[in-house]
């Protein structure tokens, strides 16, 4: 099986069966999956909530850089998406 190429034009989306949700009681975004939960740190939550299958990684990066008034995040975002695809948290919209 070929690994999908992940670059600035990829459009990631949360995998089927998983759900991203803000939990006030934990003051965090969580990723819910069958019988388990991953409590996300701020960055992971901020990236994942932008992964709607329509936005490209370039869009997501630009939006994050705007929201946090910073720059140079694209490598971090790509690295995170690669990890999240590998863990089956995200898939790439074709």
């Amino acid at each position, binding site marked *: 099986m070929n690994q999908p190429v992940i670059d600035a034009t990829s459009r990631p989306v949360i995998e089927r069966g998983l*759900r991203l949700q803000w939990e006030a009681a934990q003051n965090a975004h969580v990723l819910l999956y069958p*019988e388990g939960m991953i409590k996300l*740190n701020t960055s992971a939550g901020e990236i994942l909530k932008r992964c709607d299958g329509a936005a490209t990684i370039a869009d997501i990066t630009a939006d994050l850089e705007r929201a946090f008034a910073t720059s140079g995040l694209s490598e971090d975002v790509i690295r995170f998406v690669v990890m999240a695809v590998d863990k089956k948290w995200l898939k790439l919209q074709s």
Partner: protein
Amino acid sequence: MAETPVLDVPVQPRPKVAMRPEPIAAARPGPPLWLLCELTYRCPLHCAFCYNPTDFARTAAELGTEDWLRVLREARALGAVQLGLSGGEPLSRDDLEPIVAEAHRLGFYINLITSGVGLNEARISALKAAGLDHIQLSFQDSTKQMNDFLSSTRTFELKSTVAALIKKYEYPMVLNVVLHRLNIDHVEQILDMALRLGADYVELANTQYYGWAWHNREQLLPSRSQVERAEKTMQSFRERVGNRMKIYFVVPDYFERRPKACMNGLGSIFLTVTPDGTALPCHAARMLPLEFPNVRSASVGEIWYDSAGFNHFRGDAWMKEPCRSCPEKSRDFGGCRCQAYMLTGDAANADPVCDLSPHHHLVTEAVERAERPGAGSPQLEAGEKPLVFRTERNSSTLFGGRDR
């Protein structure tokens, strides 16, 4: 000042209660993140390894729909987010759909833990529409004959049909197979079957010895060589199929030298409500000599934060030696309170699975007995001491259950 995203996501692996343990002496516990609703003890199967209490036949009437909806609302308000709907067989309840609908409206991630008996297209379609997130389907074995023997009914073909329905309704397909002496040698066939059915996840869960499984322990405990063989088979299968199907192997704790961090410590994240409304910090805890509250007479908040039953094993003040002074106590919390109680008669003792426990020999002796010849031969075993299947009748006649 801009916040630079930090990408070290805290990842907790499965199985089950997959969250980071809080500090052991937390003054006030966090919320009950995991709510397990055992909707009923009724079940069309009669599995000899069921963890349900052997005297289930004498428990009081089941909670009604409104009671369950109230439990859901109160638990969610506290921060509960993972919901298990289990039993018995939860599909035996004809109000499962409205319960799911309310849980979904509240924002729970809803797991149905089922044998699949009673799941037809009309019901799965209604459950999907109500917002059910996930179905875990249990299999007893990969062959029809063994599956039917171990669950004491004819369900294998039905489960194959249900597996197809689960795929059709686009659920992640999670198969759970409880392993024990009589089926552990079939791990290869079980995994082959799972792959054929299109499973995304397979849990090979070695039997934990509570309830009916405890009663049948001498018949169900595998030998060490069986366990090692199964693990090796599973490993090479895992290498062969890669990411396509994730395999989880829950190691049988009798073969370990350290106990499991049971429930991440009682009363830390896990709350079970049994069919009659009794609230427990673990689904086996009803056996403990403690008074546990009931949702009919107390709110979930009072139960979680204020009841004696839930506070008893929080922190480490209850611990005895060798746990009390053990540097590992914040990792495993002394293991399982129920196992300590069943094996030693004192729930505050170290779990005898731990080789630092003065009672560890109780575990190793059971494992040694499992080395006797005749392993894996149900007929022979049945001749020595029959498996006792989980039936209402056995519950009444053997374990003091009474008619409801």
